[in-house]
């Protein structure tokens, strides 16, 4: 299997990442699809602004503000990288999840079997419940 293509068409512009050179195993593909379905359900919740899901070969972005996709993507990447740095400093092991609370919104970022997920939500949203639903 050499090619993957995913997209979500809600009220946001889907971002599709194709790479003919990269390959994924059936298990990875299954995990990605499973996460994608869970996220699509979570996206319907009140207070959820959107999400970013990316694996080594694919990415799905569904956000209320498509014009800010780049900002969200950069933040998502930075949050996971910096969190892993902090985790390494204090020998906390692999980062399971990160909750970043802003003054207006919050984000839940995690890495599940190499799939990097960021879910953006309003401050009132129940991130603990979302975490429970998305966790394997």
């Amino acid at each position, binding site marked *: 299997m050499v090619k993957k293509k995913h997209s979500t068409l809600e009220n946001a512009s889907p971002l599709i990442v194709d790479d003919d050179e990269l390959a994924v195993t059936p298990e990875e593909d299954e995990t990605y699809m499973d996460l994608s379905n869970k996220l699509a359900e979570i996206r319907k919740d009140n207070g959820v602004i959107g999400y970013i899901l990316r694996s080594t070969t694919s990415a799905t972005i569904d956000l209320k503000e498509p014009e800010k996709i780049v900002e969200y993507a950069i*933040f998502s990447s930075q949050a996971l990288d*910096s969190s892993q*740095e*902090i985790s390494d*400093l204090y020998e906390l*092991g692999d*980062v399971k999840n990160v909750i*970043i*609370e802003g003054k*207006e919104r919050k984000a839940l970022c995690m890495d599940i079997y190499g799939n990097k997920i960021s879910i953006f939500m309003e401050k009132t949203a129940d991130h603990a419940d979302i975490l429970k639903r998305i966790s394997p």
Partner: protein
Amino acid sequence: MNNEVYSFALKNTLQEIQNICPDVSNTFIFKDGQVIAQDETTSKKIVNQTLDAFNAITEKAGILGGLNAVTIQGTNGQANIACMNDFYLTTISSKEADEKYVNTLTRILIPTVIRLVEKIHPAQSGDETLTTVAPELAEPELEEDETAEDEVAEEITDQTEDEEEENELPEEETATTEDEEEPFEPEIDTEPLLPEPPVTQLIVENLSGFRVPSDTVRIDQEVITQWNELYGDKKINEVKIETLSGKTTRCKFKHIKKSKDAGKGIIKMPEKIQLTLETSQGALVTVKPVVE
């Protein structure tokens, strides 16, 4: 306020948190990118690297409307960086730690200590210095103190002699210079049974005139009489005045001369002292006697 004051209080608080929660391995507090306090187990290098990583997230957190807190859950433990009263507390704990307990403890203790330091510090400064205390002007205050020391050097010499003679020649200046070197502690040690100085609320009124001393306020005779009755033969040469905003000063006092001003609950204050206290006519201040 000087960060050193926060540092002292917060460092002890961090240590206590770790004593109470042994699962908390590292703690430190920073503000505006500067480390205010850290525990003994965390190296500066680690702290700086943590700050760099945190700042990297902060820079990109505009879409969240600024950053309040970050919680990183790792397989072996968790890191939490939370904003409290403009200070950021970092807590690293093992996976055995009770997250709710640690969060409850830190989020109550640290803000409480910060608030306490903010409240206590101005009052202490007022006691320690000869001149008026503005909490945010702690450093310039030191220079003023040095100047004051020079100016009253002669008085200090007199004071030493006076002390040796066991106050045979008590004067107002004696009390003033004595406070500068040994504010209150010796007195507390030798006179442990003195009652707490009563605090009286008074309204500021202007005191002006050609021969009015700029370092003396005028207070109701009734109030002064109460103080004298309370402290008997103890000398009360000065009063400590505090504004509602926490600014304090010490100065000499006399009773109000004009009978029409008596019993009105006012304190007649020269312009110089009003400026020092950043107060004005009509404002409320608290006054208590400085018992020698």
